[in-house]
């Protein structure tokens, strides 16, 4: 279908466009921006007056909970939430039950996602079999089945020799390895940052060195093996500094942060709010400031939702017993906009962290609206204010630390492959 999006403010970080400019879509691709291509007849016109037209968001971590945790969320519910949040591509971590460690599981997930005809789903496969940290998965087979990277999700990999071998093997084929840095001994039983709040609340703590020690190990092994390393969910100022130094020394490492950690700190735990039980733990205000600075100077490449829908029964428990994680697909865009507003960033630079940069990490030609590109588009009203209420979320997970917060930015249209998949 030929679609014309007219009168919108087009923001395309890759092409450095931030101007009122029409977008023309034909055959699932961007046919032109600005003036209509010759002979273009719009079958549908979207009036984007007062709205922003941007590349669809690309989320590096969205748990869809299938297979195995359908009681928490299903592909149907979460894919609907994704497009309602303007997300047109998402990578899902392998921490399902069973974990994504076999080609058959990956094929099934991709098949299920394709039939829903919504966002593109990019499974991240398990790095080790069963995420147990002992034996390698069949990485090449998994890649053939459609996996874009290999990860341990939040499962520990304590044996550094296995980690080195996994990196070497992945490097053989040019695969990316995605790891969240956390020393499992130092983090054992911990549920909160080892600081003032955990001390006051008497919560078992995770020190910052749990992150930096694991990070130093991963960076050393990446240098040794030459693997493409992506660091997931950085949480501390010291972690940001290690990445900054590694990048200055020329290591081709990338990293992301969850949008929760861009906005929240240990202080938000308040009187034991289980919605603030997150992995990694929310750290100090100083750490949050360093994460923001790292985003601005490019040390941190991308912002993800770290979407973790959790069932009420396992969330409504005393803090430490509550299942960690927060729902995030529908909050990613508003929270990126909020960050841009608070830190006075150009919208284009802020949006790049959730569009162009994650596309590059995934190795996709996406996250931009160049002529010829797949027409994955998000059209949103930047001035629409709304109050986060669990009932208003499409995700089956209603667990959010932003409950009751007023946020800014509502998606009006989401297009995937040039097809309108969401409208509000």
């Amino acid at each position, binding site marked *: 279908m030929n679609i014309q999006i007219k009168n919108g403010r087009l923001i395309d970080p890759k092409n450095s466009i931030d101007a009122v400019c029409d977008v023309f879509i034909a055959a699932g691709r961007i046919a032109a921006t600005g003036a209509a291509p010759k002979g273009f007849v719009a079958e549908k016109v979207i009036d984007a007056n007062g709205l922003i037209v941007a590349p669809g968001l690309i989320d590096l971590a969205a748990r869809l909970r299938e297979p195995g945790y359908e009681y928490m969320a299903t592909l149907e519910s979460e894919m609907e939430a994704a497009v309602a949040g303007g997300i047109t591509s998402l990578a899902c971590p392998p921490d399902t039950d069973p974990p994504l460690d076999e080609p058959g599981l990956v094929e099934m997930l991709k098949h299920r996602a394709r039939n829903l005809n919504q966002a593109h789903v990019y499974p991240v496969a398990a790095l080790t079999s069963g995420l147990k940290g002992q034996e390698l998965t069949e990485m090449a087979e998994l890649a053939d089945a459609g996996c874009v990277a290999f990860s341990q999700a939040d499962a520990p990999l304590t044996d550094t020799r296995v980690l080195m071998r996994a990196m070497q093997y992945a490097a053989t084929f040019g695969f990316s390895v995605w790891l969240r840095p956390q020393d499992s001994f130092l983090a054992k039983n911990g549920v909160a940052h080892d600081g003032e709040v*955990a*001390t*006051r*609340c008497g919560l*078992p*703590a995770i020190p910052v060195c749990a992150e930096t020690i694991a990070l130093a190990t991963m960076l050393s092994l990446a240098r040794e093996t030459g693997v493409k390393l992506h660091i997931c969910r950085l949480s501390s100022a010291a972690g940001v500094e290690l990445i900054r130094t590694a990048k200055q020394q020329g290591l081709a490492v990338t990293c992301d942060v969850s949008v929760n950690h861009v906005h929240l700190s240990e202080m938000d735990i308040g*009187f034991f709010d289980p919605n603030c039980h997150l992995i990694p733990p929310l750290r100090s205000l100083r750490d949050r400031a360093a994460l923001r600075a790292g985003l601005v100077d490019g040390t941190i490449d991308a912002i993800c939702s770290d979407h973790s829908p959790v069932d009420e029964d396992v969330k409504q428990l*005393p803090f430490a017993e509550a299942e960690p994680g927060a729902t995030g697909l529908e909050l990613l865009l508003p929270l990126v906009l909020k960050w841009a507003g608070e830190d006075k960033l150009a919208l284009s630079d802020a949006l790049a962290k959730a569009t162009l940069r994650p596309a590059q990490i995934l190795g996709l030609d996406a996250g931009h609206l160049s002529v010829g590109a797949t027409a994955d588009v998000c059209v949103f009203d930047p001035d629409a204010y709304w109050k986060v209420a669990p009932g208003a979320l499409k995700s089956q997970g209603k667990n959010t630390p932003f409950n009751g917060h007023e946020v800014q930015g509502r998606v009006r249209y989401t297009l995937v492959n040039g097809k309108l998949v969401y409208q509000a």
Partner: protein
Amino acid sequence: MNNPQLNKHGELQHLLTTEGLPVDIVRDILDRAATFVDVSDGREIKKVPLLHGKSVFNMFFESSTRTRTTFEIAAKRLSADVVNLNIGASSTSKGETLLDTVDNLCAMHADMFVVRHAQSGAAHFIARHVAPDVHVINAGDGRHAHPTQALLDMFTIRHYKKEFHNLRVAIVGDVLHSRVARSQIHALTTLGVPEVRVIAPKTLLPAMVENLGVQVYHDMAQGLHDVDVVLMLRLQNERMQGAALPSAQEYFKYYGLTEEKLARARPDAIVMHPGPMNRGIEIDSRVADGTHSVILSQVTFGIAVRMAVMSMLAGAK
């Protein structure tokens, strides 16, 4: 954030922690407790009808004999009906969620819950979910708080020392894992004690503990110098397995309270312990049973303080 223990009139709705508890309420509890000491000590009939017709449910998700017993005695002396639930052994092991357990007990028209739970924040969690006319008393949640213990300690200190504003108090031992220590620190600073010290090896102190308003000592001789009150903490045996300490013997040698170490404190110093004591590990028997020890007074006063808290909660609107 609203203080979850106060109602909209600023009265005590729940007792969850001593942190942020208004000093007037703390003093009120101590004053009320003084009147109940007479009820317990002086009278033939040890009962007052303040909680007549009310039901108090002791919900102990973690085993405890002494605390549960003192709450039970306190409630009975106030003429309440007391139901003891050893929940660790019943519903939760059958898969019932904590909220279901709470809902069920609310449906039985409980007026007050006395809660002990192994998880920090459990009492706050339950207080958030009970019906608005139900009161929750935290009888110990994880490492977080044990407010009635701290209040009875304050009562004991006031009994012997009269004032708080001129005291030097040392808390000795496993502060990291201790709900008692956290509640004591908040209560002492609220009551205006100018110098609160903690004495422990670094493995038994939480991060940034000095931000709670205490001075940190690692050496007993220095830490006990000229103190008026010594608050000993219980050392759990499992600390040795977690590599927090090498051995009970070494701990006793460097951090156990002996007559020799106590000689560093003021001549009229008092020694307290929340019980149960590990004699020969954190405290020497000669000190525990000696003239400075007021440990048994703590137990007696504990009943009066718990009566004071319950009667105050029952009087709230």
